[in-house]
């Protein structure tokens, strides 16, 4: 302590300032992340305002009844980890440590090898969270006399069967997106950028923050067709009965389309990233 105090006052903060400066200049280099962050936040602000305005304006016929909206929210909470929030941490670790070279030594298509890993990783985290959540939000709340605020049963047998098919596709779709994030990690050799960008997009476009039917009507078609609706909005609306019949089949078809399209894209991109792979040292 004595020695530190003996340093001239002008030099006392020097190390901290140097670290501050060096780190600032380093992080400044992540221009894609900065641009994306800016764009998402701007978009976010605009959308939130529009949603609120639209909702208050046409409140006479809300697109989602309160009970349906509550069911939608509980499903979202229970299945939160089903969504592709970040890269497969195992893959991130291997990319940083260089152990990713062993992945290329396996006589396997790396895309599908990682795809099944992502599926297993997601499913293993979803089940122990979803089951207790549905028990709590369904029967427990109901027995406690708070049924109106709980997860209602599915809108019918057909709705339940279609929901089961749709949520299965959600799992497959989520893994294709995890793989796309993996690709970014492989290409950028770090998991930081991808892991901070993904949640911003997923949160908004999956309907997790604001259920997609509550967006203004002119946006509905686009929101229905974009890939993130299949992560929660489509299966949830099928469950609560807001999407049924031809609409439900259309939703499931859209999910299936995106599973295939994103898998094709992801596989091509992963192969390209692997072709440019660089591994330092031994």
């Amino acid at each position, binding site marked *: 302590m004595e020695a530190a105090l003996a340093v001239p006052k002008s030099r006392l903060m020097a190390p901290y300032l140097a670290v501050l400066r060096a780190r600032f200049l380093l992080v400044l*280099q992540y*221009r894609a992340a900065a641009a994306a962050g800016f764009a998402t936040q701007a978009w976010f602000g605009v959308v939130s305002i529009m949603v609120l305005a639209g909702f208050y304006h046409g409140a006479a016929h809300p697109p989602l009844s309160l009970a349906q909206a509550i069911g939608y929210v509980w499903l979202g909470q229970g299945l939160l980890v089903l969504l592709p929030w970040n890269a497969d941490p195992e893959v991130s670790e291997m990319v940083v440590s260089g152990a990713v070279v062993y992945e290329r030594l396996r006589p396997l298509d790396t895309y599908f090898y990682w795809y099944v890993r992502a599926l297993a990783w997601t499913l293993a985290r979803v089940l122990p969270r979803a089951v207790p959540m549905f028990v709590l939000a369904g029967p427990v709340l109901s027995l406690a006399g708070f049924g109106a605020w709980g997860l209602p049963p599915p809108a019918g047998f057909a709705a339940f069967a279609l929901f089961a098919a749709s949520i299965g596709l959600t799992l497959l779709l989520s893994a294709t997106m995890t793989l796309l994030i993996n690709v970014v990690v492989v290409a950028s050799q770090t998991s930081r950028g991808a892991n901070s960008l993904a949640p911003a997009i997923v949160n908004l476009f999956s309907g997790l923050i604001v259920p997609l039917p509550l967006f203004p009507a002119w946006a509905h078609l686009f929101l229905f067709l974009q890939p993130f609706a299949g992560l929660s909005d489509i299966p949830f609306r099928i469950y609560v009965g807001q999407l049924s019949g031809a609409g439900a089949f259309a939703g499931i078809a859209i999910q299936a389309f995106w599973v295939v399209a994103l898998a094709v894209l992801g596989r091509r991109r992963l192969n390209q990233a692997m072709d440019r792979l660089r591994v330092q040292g031994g």
Partner: protein
Amino acid sequence: MPQIRVDDLSKTYRVAEREAGAMGAVKGLFRRRHRTVEALKHISFCLDEGELLGFIGPNGAGKSTTIKILSGILIPTAGICEVGGLTPWKDRIAHVARIGVVFGQRTQLWWDLPVIESFELLRDIYRMPEASFRRSRDQMVGLLRIEHLLDTPVRQLSLGQRMRCEIAAAMLHSPRILFLDEPTIGLDATSKLAVRDFVKVLNRDQGVTVILTTHDMHDIEALAKRVIVIGNGVVLRDASLEAMRAEIVGERRLVVDFAEDVAALSMEGVAVIAREGRTQTLAFDPRQIAPHRLISRITAAHEVEDLHLEEPPIEEVVARFYALHGADEA
């Protein structure tokens, strides 16, 4: 036809750089500067089935890059590389099913699983029939003496134990070609010997082709008849270990235990480099004076209890070689 053919292989990397200081960082936002690094420059060599090749060179010389290209992990910028008739990076999946690879600094075993479960996962990944898996597993477990480690999670193994398991894992699918990238790095003497013995048996008894990179010259002495020295991305020498030694260091040493006290010998072309009690270490150039002639001249003049010829330590040979060719790491 050689099993492995590398012809005029080059690999360059583009590395992004930024200028130092605040202005550099701001400039980097708009324009990136790139520097080209040539990791390999026109490398060529061939290897026949059953050969054991040692690959040596300073850090950053291009050894690992060569191994990774041969393994199908990296794609070269130019040149030809064929292993068993396949181009590794073009026919990656078929190629990697036929080779075994160990990177001494990385792990291919699943960190949280017991060793045996990693082996079983590899069995499924390589689509091995159960019977041939069992045969291969039992053989590897016996040769590397890892029976007692099979139920231990990988994270709890010592480095030496883990490396033996890594090598077993790389050989489970019975490849005919084995690439070892610094397999003995950081190992204790016992584990090093176990690894060397294993490689020797594999190469000699089963005819497995082996390429080995290492910084431990004892590995090379124990295993490799043929050595490729690589420095700054160029093959500096492709020769037998003996030929290299003879070329670099003309000098040999003769250690003589005299039966009586003898003054430091003085002979034409011979230097006494150490004298301890009745033992003298003589350095001489075998091209000037043949060893047998030197010995007979000494034994004719003096009573000798014991004598033996020594070669300069291999480390010294290699260090001199690197220096001679400017291959030392920049």
